[in-house]
C-alpha cells in the first residue's frame, strides 16, 4: 500500500457499487483494484476488446476483491452505457463512485492538418460522456453518484507535441464540470477532476512518440505509476474531502511549477549532452 495503514477511511466501500468507464487498464484499473480491495463491487467498461479479462479477474482475486463485472461499451454510445447502468441498478445498487477514465486519442499535427472532425471526435469521446453518463445514471438509478471523478491533464495550459485535440477535450471537461458542481452538491453528490501528467500508461504511449516519452522518463521524479493516481481518487472518495466539489485537484509532483525553460532548461541541456 502507498498510504498509512493507520488511516481509517470514513466511507465504507464494502458492498458498494463503483462504476469505472475505461476501467480495465491504466488509472481506471489501478483505481478498480483499490476499491475492490476495500470490498466494492466493480463495474468496468472497455472498448475494442482492449481488456484481458482473465488477467483482470486474476488480479482481483489476488487482492481478495469481489469479482468485477466487465462490459464492452463504447463510451460515446448512450445505449451501450445505459445497459451497464441498468445492470447496476438491477443488481440493487446505487452508484457510490463514478470514475471516467476514457480518453480517445487523436493526434494533432499542425494547422495544415487541423480537422473539425477530429476536434468533434475528441469532444464526443473524451468530454461529453463524463456529463452525459451522469445524466444517464440519474435517469436509470434515480440518484446521482456520491462521487464523480474525471481525469484531465495540464495540456490545455501548456503545449505538448500532438496533443491538440486531447488538450481541447480536457479544457472543456474542466470548465463544464465546475458548472454543475453546486447543484450536484445540493443532492449530496460531489464532482471533481484530477489533473495530472506523465502517468505512464498504455494511453500515454499511444499519444506521445517514443522520443517524447524518453525525455519525460529522463525526469522520472515527475512520472507517475497509475497506482499513485488511484490513491488520490480514493482520497477524494474517502469522506475526508466531502467539503470539496467542483474542483480541479492538481497531482503532478510539482512538475508544473518548474517545467519551464529557465528552471528545467539546464537539466534538459545536460540530458541532451549525455
Amino acid at each position: 500500500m502507498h498510504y498509512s495503514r493507520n488511516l481509517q477511511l470514513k466511507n465504507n466501500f464494502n458492498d458498494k457499487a463503483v462504476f469505472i468507464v475505461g476501467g480495465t487498464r491504466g488509472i481506471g484499473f489501478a483505481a478498480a483494484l483499490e476499491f475492490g480491495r476495500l470490498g466494492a463491487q466493480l463495474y468496468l467498461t472497455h472498448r475494442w476488446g482492449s481488456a484481458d479479462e482473465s488477467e483482470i479477474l486474476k488480479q482481483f482475486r489476488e487482492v481478495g476483491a469481489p469479482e468485477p463485472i466487465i462490459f464492452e461499451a463504447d463510451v460515446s454510445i448512450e445505449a451501450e452505457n445505459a445497459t451497464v447502468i441498468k445492470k447496476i441498478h438491477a443488481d440493487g445498487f446505487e452508484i457510490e463512485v463514478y470514475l471516467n477514465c476514457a480518453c480517445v486519442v487523436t493526434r494533432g499535427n499542425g494547422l495544415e492538418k487541423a480537422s473539425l472532425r477530429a476536434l468533434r471526435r475528441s469532444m464526443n469521446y473524451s468530454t461529453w460522456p463524463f456529463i452525459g453518463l451522469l445524466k444517464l445514471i440519474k435517469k436509470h438509478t434515480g440518484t446521482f453518484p456520491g462521487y464523480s471523478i474525471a481525469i484531465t491533464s495540464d495540456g490545455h495550459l501548456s503545449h505538448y507535441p500532438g496533443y491538440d485535440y486531447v488538450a481541447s477535450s480536457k479544457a472543456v471537461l474542466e470548465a463544464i464540470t465546475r458548472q454543475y458542481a453546486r447543484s450536484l452538491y445540493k443532492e449530496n453528490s460531489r464532482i471533481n477532476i484530477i489533473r495530472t501528467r506523465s502517468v505512464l500508461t498504455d494511453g500515454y504511449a499511444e499519444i506521445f512518440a517514443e522520443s517524447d516519452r524518453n525525455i519525460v522518463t529522463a525526469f522520472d521524479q515527475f512520472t507517475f505509476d497509475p497506482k499513485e493516481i488511484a490513491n488520490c481518487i480514493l482520497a477524494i472518495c474517502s469522506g475526508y474531502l466531502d467539503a470539496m466539489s467542483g474542483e480541479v485537484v492538481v497531482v503532478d509532483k510539482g512538475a508544473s511549477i518548474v517545467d519551464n525553460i529557465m528552471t528545467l532548461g539546464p537539466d534538459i541541456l545536460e540530458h541532451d549532452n549525455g
Partner: protein
Amino acid sequence: MAKRVVILNGDNELGHVIAKQFSPDHSEVVIATENQAEVHDPDTNIKIEHVTYNEDFNQDLAFAQEEINSLIAITEISDQKANENNLAEQVWPWIFVLKYLFRRKIPLPRYVVIVLAGYDPGLASLQAVQAKYITASNLDIDIHINLVNADFYHPGNNSLNYKLSGNFRPGVVTSAEQISDAVTILCSGLMDGMKAQSVYLRMGLTAPETDIAIDGGPTLVD
C-alpha cells in the same frame, strides 16, 4: 519512528480540532502559539508551546529540536488587523520553522499544510506562491507543501462579513472538522502526488463574490 505534529497558530478552535484528530496516531502534537504560556495536559499528548517568530535562528525553539512529521500552519482570517500583519503573522511562521530545521540539519517535515481559514484571496495567493517556490527548491526531498483553502470557514466568516457584508447560512460554511479532515488526508500518504497545490473546500461554490453575484445573495446569505 515517533511521528510528531506541530500546529502553528493553533491555539484556537480549528487548531484544537486538528490536534485532537492527529493525537491518536502520533506520539506528540504541539500547538504553537505566540499568545500564551506553555501548557501540557499530562493526560494527553497535546502540548501548547509558546513561540516567537522572528529572525533569531539561535533561539531555543523547543518543538523544533527533533524531526516533525507534519507541520500545519493555520491562517485564521477574521478582521482588518490580520490583513495588515499578513507577512509577519501568517506567511513567515511556517517558512521560519522550515528554515530553523534546515539550519540544524533536522530533516524537513514530510508534510506541510497551510490552512487558510476565511476569505482573503490576496493572502491565499501569497501563501501559494511561497509554497511553490519553497517546493521548487526542495524537489529532491520528500516534502509535500500544500494548502487547504476554506473561504467559508465559520468562525472565519467574520472575514466574509467584513468583505461582503453578509451572514452566511450554515449550509455554505465550512466547519473546523471538515478542514481538519482535509488536513488529515493530505498528511495520510494517499495524496503524495500533490506538491505546492491547493485543496479548496467550497462545496461546489467557486468564490464568494462570484457566487453571490451569480447564485443570488439569498442562496448564500441570510
